[in-house]
């Protein structure tokens, strides 16, 4: 009851924020310094050979569309409204369609020359990982397809943000450098399509997120090109079987995710990487007595080299293991009597790419991925080895993007 009331209140708050936002967007007479609006449009082509990452038929796809429009309005010295609506189409990667990306009230609670504290209420973006808040912003992320180990598209709608409250506290001085602390608490609505992506279309029941707590801390030493961060996520889901008939049973899922990251920004070279460990616990679902708690691991290292002001090269290597005690997947294959091949236990990706800036806000990007393993393909809970019958697969993608 409390949960229902809470989600209704948040839904109402989102409607009010959206209505206010559309009002301020049309009210173009407002002072320029109080109202800001921006947007982006990106379209590309993507070709995947050997998996159903984007489509089932393996043909070149134009399902690489990202559009967004946002507004920010300063209500008073300490209060600001902000919102963004996006349209995404990534084929099988995530649910296609229009969505409220964020719609929030930003309260600047405290600020002086060293400290700044903000409280965000409403729907906010995940600001805890290196690229989590910009994963849908084509020109603000390092590649067209982000490292799936951390930024798994199958979890996108849940991981991208939440409805609730978030706090950001920043401290900076010339001695210790810059510190950013983030805390967020909320839940994400899970659409039927998102449930299909995670659990498969055979799951006819309801899946709900009970809570999502995230904490992160970033530190950039004074005048340093390095920035370091750590984050922690703890979330709980519940699955309620469909009483009219369901292949699956009531279940409790919990997920803990710890990351450590580093970023180096030099004049020509940029290095970044994230390492994580996750614990994914399942009670029930397959059979009422089922119980598993594998510890997964993953990492990526990435480098970008700026040849000149227009051209940037990218190279990246990443690894993901769904169970650190079964890195080659033999146990998975044995336990499923051979129905799930061993290569579903991991995924490795080697990526090269380039991006070319035609102007300050017009860019073309191209990249090629060599992949081994299918551990980061959907559905997650019930893998599909019939379509994904190959251990090695590749993809290339090209995307044109404009922003203002």
């Amino acid at each position, binding site marked *: 009851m409390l949960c229902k009331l809470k989600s209704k209140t948040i839904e109402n708050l989102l409607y009010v924020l959206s209505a206010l936002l559309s009002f301020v967007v049309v009210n173009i007479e407002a002072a*320029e310094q109080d109202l800001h609006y921006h947007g982006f449009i990106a379209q590309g082509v993507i070709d995947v050979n050997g998996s159903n990452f984007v489509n089932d038929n393996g043909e070149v796809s134009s399902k690489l569309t990202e559009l967004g429009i*946002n507004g920010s309005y300063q209500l008073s010295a300490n209060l600001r409204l902000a919102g963004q609506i996006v349209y995404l189409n990534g084929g099988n990667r995530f649910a296609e369609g229009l969505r409220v990306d*964020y719609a929030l009230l930003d309260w600047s609670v405290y600020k002086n020359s060293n400290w700044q504290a903000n409280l965000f209420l409403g729907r906010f973006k995940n600001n805890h990982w290196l690229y989590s808040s910009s994963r849908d*912003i084509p020109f603000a992320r390092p590649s067209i397809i982000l490292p799936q180990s951390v930024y798994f598209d199958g979890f996108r709608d849940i991981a991208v943000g939440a409805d609730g409250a978030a706090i950001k506290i920043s401290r*900076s001085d010339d001695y210790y450098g810059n510190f950013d602390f983030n805390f967020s608490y909320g839940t994400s609505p899970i659409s039927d399509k998102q449930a299909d992506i995670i659990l498969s279309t055979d799951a006819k029941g309801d899946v709900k997120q009970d809570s999502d707590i995230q904490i992160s801390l970033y530190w950039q030493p004074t005048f340093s090109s390095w920035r370091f961060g750590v984050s922690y996520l703890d979330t709980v889901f519940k699955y309620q079987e469909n009483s009219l008939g369901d292949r699956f049973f009531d279940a409790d899922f919990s997920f803990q995710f710890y990351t450590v990251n580093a970023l180096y920004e030099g004049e020509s070279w940029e290095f970044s990487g994230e390492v994580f460990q996750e614990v994914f616990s399942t009670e029930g679902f397959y059979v009422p007595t089922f119980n598993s708690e594998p510890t997964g691991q993953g990492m990526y290292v990435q480098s970008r080299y700026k040849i000149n002001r227009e051209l940037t090269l990218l190279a990246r290597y990443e690894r993901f293991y769904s169970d650190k005690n079964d890195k080659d997947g033999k146990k998975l294959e044995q336990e499923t009597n051979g129905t799930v091949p061993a290569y579903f236990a991991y995924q490795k990706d080697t990526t090269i790419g380039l991006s070319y800036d035609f102007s300050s806000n017009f860019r073309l990007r191209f990249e090629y991925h060599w992949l081994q393993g299918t551990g980061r393909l959907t559905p997650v809970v019930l893998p599909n080895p019939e379509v994904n019958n190959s251990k090695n697969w590749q993809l290339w993608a090209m995307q044109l993007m404009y922003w203002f």
Partner: protein
Amino acid sequence: MRQTQWANGLRITAYVLPRQHSIHLRFTKDKLQMFPYQLDRIWNKLTYSGLGVAPITVNTPEELISAIRKTPGAIGYVENTKDMEAVNVVQIEK
């Protein structure tokens, strides 16, 4: 860099030139001691993730001066200081 208001409480509104503009590239590197793409990362995050408000981009140095003249508490950068009525000029020595 992280200051959002002046000592008297007036909000700071920053105006900048497009990210590939030669004056912007020079100012970022020589005066802010940062690389332009670092500013892009920080400002894109503010603008497209709802976390805050980035500086306002104008197309030319003339537009930049005109915007600063019209906006209380505004700041920006110019290369030469001709025709600077109604704005305060602070010369930054190397």
